[in-house]
């Protein structure tokens, strides 16, 4: 509720995240990954976290660093295994982290359901596969569906391009990815942006995440990261 807070630092933005929280983390590979917020979360120290994100960390930075710091109990993601996911791989093989694999579209739709007040929905993805195990199946109009439940976060950490002073957000290109749905699905949504502008500057027709979904905003320095090896 109420207008987003504009904070001076990423550390201030992640203050108060409790041990045991479920944290939705934006980004697809590196695009849209909220690196500054994750680094601040590592400094902040919250542990026993459940992380919901498309991947389970790349290289030794961002989510991978959070995992390496031993703060994560469980990961829900679509694609943990990548060429550079050695941190996750090691923890998983050592039995030190739980994994729930969720098809990418279900990950997005389940968070959308959480944000939209939908109790559950019938989805055709994964019918007849190992990921259907334990799920209720129902035939509707001759097609089979699985019942999928919402994924709600206590916090969302997302990266956007520009915020206005009220918290309205726009993104850049495919860095938009999970940000808009995660913003709707978390109790507290924390956003790092490249720039903060005055209300009235963003085109109201082009706002992607309306301010109602945004609780805390911090402007961070331009992102510098390499793209190589991000598979």
């Amino acid at each position: 509720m109420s207008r987003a807070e504009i904070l001076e630092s990423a550390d201030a933005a992640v203050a108060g995240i409790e041990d045991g929280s479920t944290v939705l983390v934006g980004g697809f590979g590196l695009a849209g990954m909220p690196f500054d917020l994750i680094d601040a979360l590592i400094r902040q120290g919250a542990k026993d976290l459940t992380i919901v994100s498309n991947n389970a960390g790349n290289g030794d930075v961002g989510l991978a660093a959070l995992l390496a710091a031993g703060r994560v109990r469980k990961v829900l993601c679509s694609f943990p295994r990548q060429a550079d996911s050695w941190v996750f791989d090691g923890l998983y093989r050592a039995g030190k982290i739980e994994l729930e694999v969720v098809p990418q579209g279900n990950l997005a739709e389940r968070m959308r359901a959480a944000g939209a007040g939908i109790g559950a929905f019938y989805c055709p993805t994964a019918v007849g596969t190992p990921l259907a195990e334990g799920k209720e199946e129902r035939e509707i109009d001759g097609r089979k569906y699985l019942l999928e439940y919402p994924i709600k976060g206590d916090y969302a950490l997302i990266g956007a391009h520009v915020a206005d002073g009220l918290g309205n957000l726009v993104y850049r290109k495919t860095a938009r990815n999970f940000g808009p749905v995660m913003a709707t699905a978390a109790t507290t949504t924390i956003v790092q942006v490249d720039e903060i502008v005055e209300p009235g500057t963003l085109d109201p027709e082009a706002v992607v995440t309306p301010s109602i979904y945004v609780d805390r905003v911090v402007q961070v320095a331009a992102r510098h990261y390499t793209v190589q090896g991000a598979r």
Partner: protein
Amino acid sequence: MTTTYSGAPTGADHRLSMDELAAVVAGDIPAGAFVNLGIGQPTKIANHLPAGSGVVLHTENGMLNMGPKAEGDAVDPDLTNAGKVPVTELPGAAYFHHADSFAMMRGGHLDVCVLGAYQVAFDGDLANWHTGKPDDIPAVGGAMDLAIGAKDVYVMMTLFTRSGEPKLVPKCTYPLTGVGCVSRVYTDCGVFDVGPDGVRIRETYGVGAHELAERLGITPP
């Protein structure tokens, strides 16, 4: 169901006009809240929000940061509120489609929604969409979505019908809009909390709490 009342304070020495009542509701809306004001009397609340309150108005036809009614050249047929009245946009506005707008509501992201009503029950049941008369054409619009959507659903209405029947009742006789969804009822004669613990008089206008309780059939605890 428990129904309680206490010696609630008398907030005014006369029944409030709908404009006065709108000011009372406006005073109870927290600064910075996201609010949907239903069609009819509740739209008047916008006129009484203090400058700088930072309250952001939502209209379910697809907009946040709606401004006041449009006048003269500012009238734009593409920019209306849910009552199809031309309105304006404030800095920081955002437009979205109907599925996104109702997801916002149903998902519990609005802080307050203020609706009109035919009847509200002591336990928070709401009836505001259909008289139930056989020749009446049913029309629900966004009433049921609004009723279950906001964190707090307030009702603003006259306490009695023109023929003197109470509209705050032990149990609704009109078809329901939502079950146990209302938390507070603002009326010309007083303000009430309603919900699972029953009804409680918060404040009265131009009438004593005991007399009001008696007229409504609210029994002491």
